[in-house]
């Protein structure tokens, strides 16, 4: 077997492993999941989170679907895997409060050099839709009132599988193109039970359920430029409509939802011997989906982020750049006709685990965010950690 074939084989093995891990379900981390199509879950790594980035224009090696042009700068085969648990405290009108926590895996991907450029496959999160709610009532079955409990459970998410290719154009420029496929499913189940909780009665539970599979496409193009001490990047993501196709035994109907074009720009400037400043923004107007929603309100998903990296820091004798950031981004869906934003302050660091011949073969990036999401009737305060592992040279 030739060396090339062995590499292909290893890459395929890695891809299978990544796909296998990605089958882990994504659980909800916000009560805003119950609004519209859910909450967006950006496919960002630990470094982007720590710098408050929208996932574009970062210096160094980066592999995120939001920055197709950055793929070209990977240079060698690279894999990335991100885990992100969060802990949410919420308070709502009526003195209702509580906590929610969960873990998710917003990004997994590999890139491999081919045809003078870099090809990649990435699996990223997009919309988180899981929530549940229960309504208690009463009905008369002929022998007096009987307690009813309507438990509704929605379980699902929209993810993206992205195939990309990027290459450098001269010493300073790079460009990339990617095709994304929306995937995932949504399982909505309503169960009405009769009688007091925990009592098994004669009247069976009524179940009305539907399962929809999500499909759609997106095309992304992006480019970046390396100027003296400055890196700038921009990308545009043009989606088709998001289609929800009902399974054969689902009584509910097929639906389609308009998705917004995402415009992203970002830049990182070297403002000192070891100080990098990063800024990025995203424009995404979800309001075109409003007409297709049965409930909830669609708004703007636009936002911006700013961050700074102190790149000379070291930990355990290894490079460990410190990062701080702030970001503010709109939630695309809300319960009321209002603008709801997520604001976070973040901090984190990177840690080079293995560096050979000046090339980082393994690195960790960790970020901790403290943020809040506020609407007129719901407020969430959360901690979110993001840990990503970047490996190269397989």
């Amino acid at each position: 077997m030739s060396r090339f074939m062995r590499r292909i084989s290893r890459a395929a093995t890695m891809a299978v492993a990544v796909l296998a891990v990605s089958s882990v379900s994504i659980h909800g981390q916000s009560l805003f999941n119950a609004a519209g199509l859910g909450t967006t879950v950006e496919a960002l790594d630990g470094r982007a989170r720590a710098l408050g980035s929208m996932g574009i224009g970062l210096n160094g090696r980066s592999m995120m679907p939001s920055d197709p042009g950055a793929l070209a700068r990977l240079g060698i085969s690279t894999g990335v895997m991100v885990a992100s648990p969060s802990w949410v405290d919420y308070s709502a009108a009526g003195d209702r409060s509580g906590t929610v926590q969960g873990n998710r895996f917003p990004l997994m991907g590999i890139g491999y050099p081919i045809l003078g450029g870099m090809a990649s496959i990435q699996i990223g999160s997009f919309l988180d839709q899981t929530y549940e709610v229960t309504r208690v009532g009463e009905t008369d079955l002929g022998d007096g009132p009987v307690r009813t409990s309507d438990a509704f459970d929605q379980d699902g998410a929209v993810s993206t599988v992205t195939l990309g290719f990027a290459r450098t154009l001269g010493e300073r420029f790079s460009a990339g193109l990617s095709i994304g496929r929306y995937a995932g499913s949504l399982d909505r189940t309503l169960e009405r039970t009769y009688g007091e909780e925990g009592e098994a009665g004669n009247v069976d539970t009524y179940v009305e359920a539907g399962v929809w599979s999500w499909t759609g496409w997106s095309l992304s193009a992006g480019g970046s430029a390396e100027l003296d001490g400055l890196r700038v990047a921009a990308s545009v993501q043009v989606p088709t409509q998001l289609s929800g196709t009902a399974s054969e035994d689902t009584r509910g109907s097929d639906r389609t939802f308009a998705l917004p074009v995402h415009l992203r720009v970002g830049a990182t400037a070297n403002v000192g011997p070891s100080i990098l400043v990063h800024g990025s923004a995203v424009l995404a107007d979800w309001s075109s989906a409003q007409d297709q929603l049965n409930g909830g309100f669609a708004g703007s998903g636009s936002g911006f982020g700013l961050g700074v990296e102190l790149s000379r820091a070291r930990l355990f004798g290894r490079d460990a750049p410190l990062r701080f950031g702030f970001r503010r981004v709109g939630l695309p869906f809300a319960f009321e006709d209002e603008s709801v934003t997520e604001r976070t302050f973040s901090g984190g660091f990177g840690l080079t685990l293995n560096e050979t011949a000046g090339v980082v073969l393994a690195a960790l990036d960790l970020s901790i965010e403290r943020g809040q999401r506020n609407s007129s009737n719901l407020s969430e305060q959360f901690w979110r950690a993001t840990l990503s592992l970047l490996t190269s040279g397989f």
Partner: protein
Amino acid sequence: MRVNSASFRWKSGSLSVLVAHRKGPAAAALGFAIMFGVGCQEQTPVALNDDALPGAPITVTVEIPWSAFASNLEVFGGYGSAEDIGQGVLAEDFAGTLDARTLLRIGSYPRVATVQDTTGASRPDSTLTILGGRFVAFFDTIESTNSGAVTLALGAITEEWDQTTASWDFAVDTINDERPWSEAGGGVVLPVAQTVWDPLVGDTAVFVLDSAEVAAWADTTDLSAGARIEILDSGERLSLSKAVVRLDARPSSNPDTIIELTAVTRGSTFIYSPFPQPPPDGVRIGGAPSWRTILDVNIPEILDNLPDFCAVVRCPHELSPGEISYAALVLTSRATEAAFQPTDSIRLDVRPVLNRAAMPKSPLGVSLIVSPFGRSVAPEAFGSEPGLEIEIPFTGYARDRLRGTDASGNPTPETLALLSVIEPFSITFASFDGPQSAAEPFLRLVLTIGPPVELP
């Protein structure tokens, strides 16, 4: 910052680079393990209010008349034998009609007993001299109708009889062998003894036997051997739980001592007259041999012309299996013929008939009632307090019947059998009003009807 991939290719050709520096990946793996650990407890967000729920279903109770869901009601008898019950019945002109006697076969007598000899040592003694004994009958004081003393008579059967097929008129009633008693009701018997049983004193009646009478039942190969016990006082019905023969014997090893041995019965049955005729217009369940009632069930696919239902649901409504939250056949009890009125609870069962054309011999499916003890009904419902509505739930069957197949994809039988959980269980049986009567059976449905769940 740009990495020259060509210059690096020689290093990345093998994972040995990573293997040589295992600390990095190990630390990364540890980091991920920590992340998984701290975030592994998943909690699903709970929406704030009902707005996040899809359309609410409504619940409606519907009563479907007999003609709209059932047909072809038929009563079959003859399931099992009185012998299967293992108990006896005694009656004399009970409720002005019923006569019943119990026939028993006595088991073999003990031939060996361990006794103390004259030296005080215990040893087996096979040379026993039977001096006489007692026939002891145990009665069920709850099922028996008498509250005062009654006179009982014990006789020795003189004709060959078959305990499985014996009836009031026939001693043997098998295929190609039908032999009537010389005298209806167990033939001519040799009177053995009479006694009085008073339930206030105890639950046993004792007949004293002499050695000749005891010896007459000693031959277990004699097909005519057996005891017949009857009640002489009219107007009562007794339930005999069991009977034994207590033998007084003298062991050869210690002739001065009388020991008591016990011989149990090895079979019993009861015969009675008159045998009830199938009801022309009702439902009958139970008895010995048992009665079953079968009916064809057809859950309506379209609901219409039901005022209460159509007031809340747009009619006509096409019923789907998932909308049936509860389904039950509702029967109205009526008084059973006095001679066969239950004195204890009747336990009803409902099972699918797998091949109606093969009735009365069609096999039955598994019970549709969740409880292994069936649907219990108090005896008063068939005597002093008739007109009680008895629901026999079969929700799962109703869904399958509407769907046409069960969960395994097999066709759902169209016919149901109403029967006793244990067949036969008692000479008594349950009676219900039949079709075309004022209290005809009907189908009670609790329906939950909701809009389809749609995308947000």
